[in-house]
């Protein structure tokens, strides 16, 4: 890689020599942005402190603080270059801000990667083609690779992609660019708001954002009344932490 020109000073410091480092830097950058240097340590999930190399990509038991890969680990299905484009896109879809961490820190990227392993080569190809097309579209229309654009330009490029305006003209989207956008958006939402069993929704960031009261096996009339009175304590656990589903695998 090694592109010289960047338009966005905030992103100038991205190293481009490998996805692991790149993505983990992005994570740290966003955590820092969210809370400032002093508060960042408190925001880093317990499971990540000193866990940069130990975790392995397994599905089962991907509960809070247990076994999921840390955000920023290399993806199994995409190259480093593809990963950094996807990371930048996901980061714009659900950014980290004063309302909480974003999709990147919730590890939507890891969720997407595991999902691609399940969906197979056709889906991986859809991502590869779409990410390359997004990069090409950015260069053609805004003069730089997607990751090098300012946030404003990234957003305007993504709006073109979402509305289908980036289709055609040799950019490389298959069919409407909107299909690619919707696919990534859908997976990003699953990876941010879905059950953490699948590796995303780290620290229950998605559920906290929308005040989801959580997974329960039974909701009594009293529970519902408490919910309506804003007195119900949220549950924060995966469905697979419930006793009858704890056997490990989604059957």
């Amino acid at each position, binding site marked *: 890689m090694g592109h010289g020109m960047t338009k966005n000073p905030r992103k100038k410091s991205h190293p481009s020599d490998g996805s692991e480092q790149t993505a983990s830097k992005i994570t740290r950058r966003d955590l820092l942005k969210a809370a400032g240097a002093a508060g960042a340590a408190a925001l880093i999930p317990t499971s990540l402190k000193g866990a940069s190399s130990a975790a392995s990509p397994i599905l089962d038991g991907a509960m809070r603080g247990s076994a999921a890969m840390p955000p920023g680990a290399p993806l199994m299905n995409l190259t480093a270059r593809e990963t950094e484009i996807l990371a930048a896109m996901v980061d*714009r*879809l*659900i*950014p980290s*801000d004063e*309302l*909480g961490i974003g999709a990147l820190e919730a590890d939507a990227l890891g969720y997407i990667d595991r999902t691609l392993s399940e969906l197979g080569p056709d889906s991986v190809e859809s991502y590869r083609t779409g990410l390359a097309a997004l990069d090409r579209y950015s260069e053609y229309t805004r003069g730089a690779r997607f990751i090098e654009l300012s946030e404003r330009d990234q*957003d305007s490029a*993504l*709006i073109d992609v*979402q509305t289908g305006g980036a289709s055609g003209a040799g950019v490389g989207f298959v069919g409407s660019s909107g299909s690619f956008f919707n696919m990534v*958006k*859908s997976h990003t*939402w*699953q990876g*941010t*708001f*879905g*059950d953490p*069993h*699948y590796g995303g929704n780290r620290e229950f960031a*998605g*559920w906290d*954002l*929308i*005040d*989801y*009261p959580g*997974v*329960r*096996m*039974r*909701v009594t*009339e009293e*529970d*519902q009344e408490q*919910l*309506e009175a804003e007195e119900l304590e949220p549950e924060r656990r995966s*469905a*697979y932490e*419930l006793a*009858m*589903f704890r*056997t490990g695998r*989604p*059957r």
Partner: protein
Amino acid sequence: MPRQLRSTDVVIVGMGAAGGVAVLPLAEAGLDVVGLEAGTWLDQRDFAPDEIRNNYRDWPMLVKKCENERPTSRATSATNANRVGGHPMMNAVGGTAVHYWAQSWRLNPWDFQVVSETARRYGRSRIPANSTVEDWPFGYDELEPYYDRVEREIGVSGQAGNVGGNLDLKGNRFEGPRKRPYPMPALRWTGFLETMADAAHSLGWHPFPGPAAINSERYDGRAGCAYHGFCSKGGCPVNAKNSPHLTTIPKALDTGNLRIVTQAHVTTLQMDGEGRVTGVNYVVGNEEYFQPAKVVLLACYTYENVRLLLLSRSSAYPDGLSNNHGQVGRHYFSHHQGAAVSALFPFDLKSWYGLPAQGVAIDDWADDNFDHVGHDFIGGGNLWVMSDRRPISAASMSTYGNGRNWGSGWKRFIRENADRSHSSYIQKTTLPYEDNYLDLDPTVTDELGLPVIRITAQFKQNERAIAEFTQNRMEEWYREAGAIEVVRGGLGNSMGISTHAYGGTRMGHDPGTNVVNPWSFSHEAPNLGILGASVMGTSGARNPTLTSQALAWRSAAHLVENWEDVSG
């Protein structure tokens, strides 16, 4: 050569909502019954409250026959048919009833007599041009005892509105008279549902809780509903959703007269030279089998019922089994469930828990429950609001024109509004038409190389007029309850693939326009019965499952009482 199995009295193709109910009267009568099911058994440990798996992935099914044979569709014969989207139907013992919403309605009396009642009240000219709709061969009263029986056998909760002609205004005043109340009280309401019911009252409408094949309390040894919020496309982890795999099938197995073969992929029905069916060919893995039977009951979903008939050809049936009158695939229609209306409220609805079958119904604008003199359509729609929300779908809500659906601005929007949106469910009368039909696709096949069904069908003026009318009513209702934004879907065009698919093997007296007789046995092959919504000639404005189950019970009871005649 397929392996020839020992003959049985009755073989049923499909252990879903209809076939899984018919097994009980047959087995209890002492008939030997073989149930062939493409799927497998699932149990409550398969049903984790997991939105990703239930609503975004393909479930825990081992067998995806439904998926491989999903139909192609097109609006009219002038266009090419495409295969779009997935198929919500599933293969399992219990079929799609394992994960359905379980709304368990009886049809209203009008639905059985659309032609004669329309002619009587408004004149025959009000039947839309090119509609092939007929009156059912019998009225509501004929089916009432079977509705009553099935409601008790599987367990249906609800609030009766008309017991023996005595109206109870807590229930649906428009329902046909029932012998008894429901065996269980209705599912509870939430605060938001109470708000909607109050708003309906203010409009002078008649809200009531809808019926569901879901236990509102302990019933028949199974738990009451847990209201945990993962019911939509989810199996029930506490066994409160009354799929046949928990209700009628275990009881039939207990008689010792039912044997179920799972992972059995039925390919064709077999006939003799006289036109009687002799049994069923099926495949398990790479092994082929022939199951001979005195009587065959076809109890698949509408598309597969029609497909198996069209795929089963012989000298007696050159155009497909029971199709010598050219009626197989005709009179097809699917419920107009589109043309949605959604609303944004300025307060949290607290809808995170509950289930689609827990809700408030309005029947004032359904069927012929209101005067159609000033309208340009017949029929109408049932309005339904429920308590059902999960995190991913909540976060994917419409922004109601408040900016784009991602980014920091969206994050502020969703933080505020994730629990403030509501989507109604409006089921609308849909009629059969001359040029809406099912046939075999000329090019697309399943994994065995057999052609899939091709849907050629579109909603017509009558359906679109109902859609617009009911959208207006729904918006009124939402606004009355305090909604600040209301959005509407399109009125509908191509019918596409549907979970409420009717016709194709319609039931009626006339063999010239119907595949099966009033007992749902073939006009042409006397020992072939057909179960499911494919025999229904009208849709009503409500879910078809309970009606197809009542019809299945009635056909099975008829078979038991007329065994010598039917089995020959």
